[in-house]
């Protein structure tokens, strides 16, 4: 390995990146924009879900209940209707996401402690807001019930603070609100850094398409030097993102950063090395840019989304996929980012993952160098 | 000028890119049915001029009429009537020879029978019979060039623009290619060609020399030779060509001999000087002094290459 060769390739690649302004800006901006949009879209606070209420009871209690249901800004009363057909029509047209049907016996059953005669109807095509409605209506119903029954229960000489006698004292560490955005954003960093990895594959395909690779192959430059030299500038591009992302996350989404930033930076560099080596392997096997694009989805983006445990817990996966996820740099990096952003741990905890990342990076580079022939045809 | 007699009329054609003037007010006219050679060094504005004539670039100033149609306004009308072979990229590399030809033919609206016939002919002309299913990228440079040319004239255009059509083509094919151009011209097809082979330029009916965007000579090869060549050319066949050139150049530098130009010409040396008869003996003496036998010496008619080089210097 000659540092001089390496540096020559790096410098050339940096010139390329810098001189094509439009691409340079896009390369820098895309990961950040993607992260921002994904984070926003995935974690919008659900509110103002339009619902319809069909009150067959029309009692004081049911009216008070309706009042209670719609007092927050989580659920919006879209319409008070009088037939099930109207509920159906509204659901079909997508004007409401859920409906609450209060049975004629609502008040009676409640007083007799027979339970809550309620039905919640939700639009199964959008369970996101439907599920939300179920949860919130259920919660309100329970509250309402507890209050309504409080005086009655006291007469029975039992203690029942609520209708949920088992008191769950939940403490959520590292992300007290349990908002998904807080942990998805650190997780998603590994996804969006797939873009620099793709760029590496593209530049190699580009050099093949334009014949410049032929001239370089005729020089004594080593395979590993060539591959590493093409990779390192994109590691740098990725690192610029790595610096910007925590700042963006903090300013726009108020994501904390509890760990050591230098450590984050260092491990991100290792991760980029590993991920970009994957991109490089693509570039080694692929001749044209469209092919590199297509393959990058199958190799980098899809697995990065599904198999790295950002959205789907690795523990729940079948054995074979769990093994595969171990071979993806994103899996280890997601653990590292969550640890540094949220848990605030250090290398004492994260070292196994860091070692894995490094190992994967070296392994991928070696595979790339092994299959990269300095030959044409 | 009767526009019917002319395939191309360019008036004050100018193209500027920013503050760089690529083509600077050139005027020329190409008669129908002639081979018009457009010569100039690399970067002198040849390709830019062709692009303007094809309506790919809008002239900054001036105008050009192609086949009687003003290009700037109605480029679309002339496209079916002209053929164009660009310098490097006229073929799709991942397509096979046949697929490329078929694409050209259909694009220019040839019907199936005619297309089959023309493709057959084109393959023959390019020497690619039996290799129709080879991917274009697997062809050697010269063959690709021949294929591109056959494709450009597949639809028998009235006027064909050829931008360095024979670059990298071997001499045998080049001759076959020029034979073909003559056949085309016999069918009243006009050929506008750029080339770096000056021996090819000799075979053009008329020529234009362009340098730094300006037209510096215009006329038939004979006219150009007569009007632009200062001095005569002495052809020498010395024993050691390289050494002879060195010796004569040294003589020129030191001012011992009033030579305009000393150039190696294959195994021969061409020396240019005014009133060559007076210097012939001195040249021979100079060579002998350096132990080079001058061999056969003769004043010859200047070749276009001699003229071109004299012009461009």
């Amino acid at each position: 390995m000659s540092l001089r060769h390496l540096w020559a390739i790096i410098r050339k690649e940096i010139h390329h990146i810098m001189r094509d302004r439009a691409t340079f800006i896009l390369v820098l901006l895309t990961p950040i924009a993607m992260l921002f949009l994904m984070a926003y879209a995935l974690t919008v606070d659900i509110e103002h879900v339009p619902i319809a209420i069909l009150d067959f009871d029309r009692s004081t209690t049911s009216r008070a209940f309706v009042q209670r249901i719609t007092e927050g800004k989580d659920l919006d009363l879209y319409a008070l209707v009088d037939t099930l057909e109207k509920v159906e029509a509204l659901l079909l047209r997508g004007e409401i996401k859920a409906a609450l049907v209060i049975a004629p016996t609502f008040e009676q059953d409640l007083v007799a402690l027979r339970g809550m005669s309620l039905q919640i109807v939700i639009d199964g095509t959008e369970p996101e807001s439907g599920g939300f409605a179920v949860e919130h209506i259920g919660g309100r119903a329970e509250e309402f019930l507890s209050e309504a029954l409080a005086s009655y229960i006291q007469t029975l000489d039992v203690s029942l603070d609520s209708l949920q006698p088992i008191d769950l004292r939940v403490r959520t560490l590292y992300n007290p609100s349990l908002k998904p955005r807080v942990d998805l954003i650190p997780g998603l960093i590994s996804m969006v850094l797939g873009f620099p990895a793709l760029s590496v594959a593209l530049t190699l395909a580009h050099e093949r398409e334009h014949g410049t690779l032929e001239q370089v192959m005729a020089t004594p430059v080593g395979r590993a030097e060539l591959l590493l030299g093409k990779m390192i500038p994109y590691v740098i591009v990725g690192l610029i993102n790595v610096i910007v992302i925590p700042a963006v996350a903090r300013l726009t989404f108020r994501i904390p950063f509890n760990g050591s930033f230098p450590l984050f930076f260092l491990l991100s560099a290792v991760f980029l090395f590993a991920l970009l080596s994957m991109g490089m392997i693509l570039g080694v096997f692929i001749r044209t840019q469209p092919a590199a694009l297509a393959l990058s989805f199958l190799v980098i983006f899809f697995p990065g989304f599904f198999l790295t445990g950002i959205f789907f817990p690795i523990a729940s996966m079948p054995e074979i996929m769990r093994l595969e996820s171990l071979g993806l740099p994103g899996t280890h990096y997601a653990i590292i980012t969550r640890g540094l952003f949220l848990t605030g741990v250090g290398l004492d905890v994260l070292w196994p993952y860091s070692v894995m990342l490094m190992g994967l990076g070296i392994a991928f580079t070696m595979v790339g160098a092994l299959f990269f022939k300095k030959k044409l045809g | 000028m009767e526009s019917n007699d002319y395939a191309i009329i360019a008036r004050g054609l100018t193209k500027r890119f920013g503050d760089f003037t690529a083509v600077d007010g050139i005027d020329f006219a190409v008669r129908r049915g002639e081979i018009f050679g457009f010569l100039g060094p690399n970067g002198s504005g040849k390709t830019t001029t062709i692009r303007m004539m094809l309506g790919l670039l809008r002239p900054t100033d001036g105008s050009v009429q192609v086949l009687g149609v003003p290009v700037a306004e109605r480029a679309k009308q002339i496209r079916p009537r002209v053929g164009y072979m660009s310098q490097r990229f006229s073929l799709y590399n991942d397509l096979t020879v046949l697929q490329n030809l078929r694409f050209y033919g259909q694009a220019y609206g040839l019907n199936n029978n005619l297309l089959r016939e023309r493709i057959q002919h084109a393959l023959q002309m390019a020497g690619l019979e039996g290799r129709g299913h080879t991917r274009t990228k697997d062809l050697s440079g010269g063959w690709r060039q021949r294929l591109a040319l056959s494709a450009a004239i597949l639809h028998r255009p009235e006027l064909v623009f050829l931008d360095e059509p024979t670059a990298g083509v071997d001499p045998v094919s080049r001759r076959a290619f020029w034979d073909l151009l003559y056949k085309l011209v016999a069918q009243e097809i006009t050929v506008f060609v750029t080339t770096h082979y000056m021996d090819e330029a000799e075979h053009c009916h008329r020529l234009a020399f362009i340098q730094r965007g300006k037209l510096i000579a215009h006329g038939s090869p004979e006219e150009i030779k007569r009007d632009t060549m200062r001095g005569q050319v002495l052809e020498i066949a010395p024993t050691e060509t390289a050494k002879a050139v060195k010796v004569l150049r040294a003589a020129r530098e030191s001012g011992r001999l009033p030579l305009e130009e000393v150039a190696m010409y294959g195994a021969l040396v061409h020396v240019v000087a005014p009133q060559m008869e007076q210097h012939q003996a001195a040249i021979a003496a100079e060579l002998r002094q350096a132990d080079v036998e001058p061999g056969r010496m003769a004043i010859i008619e200047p070749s276009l290459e001699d003229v071109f080089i004299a012009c461009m210097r």
Partner: protein
Amino acid sequence: MLKWTSCVRRIWSLSIKEFIHLINDWWMPAFMLFGGVIELLLVGWATSRPITNLPLMVLDRDQSAASRTVVTALENTGTFALKALAPDMETIQDALERGQINAAVIIPPDFDNEVASPIGRPTLAILLNGAESIPATAALRAIEGVASDMGEGVILERLGLEPDDFAGFAPSLRVWFNEALSEALYTTPAELGLMLEFTTLLFAALSFSRERELGTLEQLLVMPFSSMEIIVGKSIPVILVGFFDFVLMLSMVHVAFGVPVRGSLPLLLILALGYLLVELGKGMVISVMSRTQHQAFLVVMMVGMMDFMFTGYAAPVESMPQIVQQVANVIPAYHWLTILRGVLLKGVGLEVLWPNVLALAILGLVIGTFSLRYVRRALN
């Protein structure tokens, strides 16, 4: 008449050429056709699987019958893989910090007594690892379920109610259009719609940028194609492959995940074709704007993400700020997803979907006209 046939012939020649490119460099079309299918399989598979096997620690300080009931109930949920009972808090703390467990349940020493006493208030302490909110939330739901089942028994006992009399305090639930509340049923159509958008956009975006980068565009421009013919000729493969892609993905989600087609299939196919045209227009604009394929790709990713945000797939559009909701109306993918869900799951037709169809048509007209103009100008 003659003019027409030669025009068709030119378009034909261009489309054939494009198809040959596709066959020769087959990764891209293969990705278009099967990448979507793979993505859908992954999504369908991942979302239809319950979350199981979450590592959980229990610290049982009570060691009573009641506490053991809790532990057994937790195990029976199937959500958890119970790691060994923890000896002390430190172990739990450490495991949480290392991210080895998603949740921990601590049963206090007096749990049994509190359950038994009529005025007791049994407590369970729960520690969640918020650094992984998705499994943490799933864990919390499961624990809540266990607690409320237990709680119901306690209530019945304390109030002296008969279980048969008791209807339960939770409201009953009915899910329309998706009775089993299968997640695959609503994620896969949305994913299908988005994949169609993305692949079409990407494919279209490469069409000109690639020829420009390789230098062949110049030759194309001097051939007697009108710019309209070039656009149409280059569009046909995109539309065909995109449409085929759609049919393939649709059949796949139907067979693999039982996604029904409750509405009219012909209507859906026609609208899919229309939607393809709209996305094609966008892709072509990106294509002539970009100098390189790399640029085209990055712009496609940005645009695709932007659309994704407005489709209501990840988050309900109703919950977004007013201004964002307005923007959603001019995003074709938003209307397309509404149509797709409507026809597939709700079984509605034009009588309900006409506002979306109309919006899509108007957007198509605007985008189409603009892109035609723009691409033509760029080509001339």
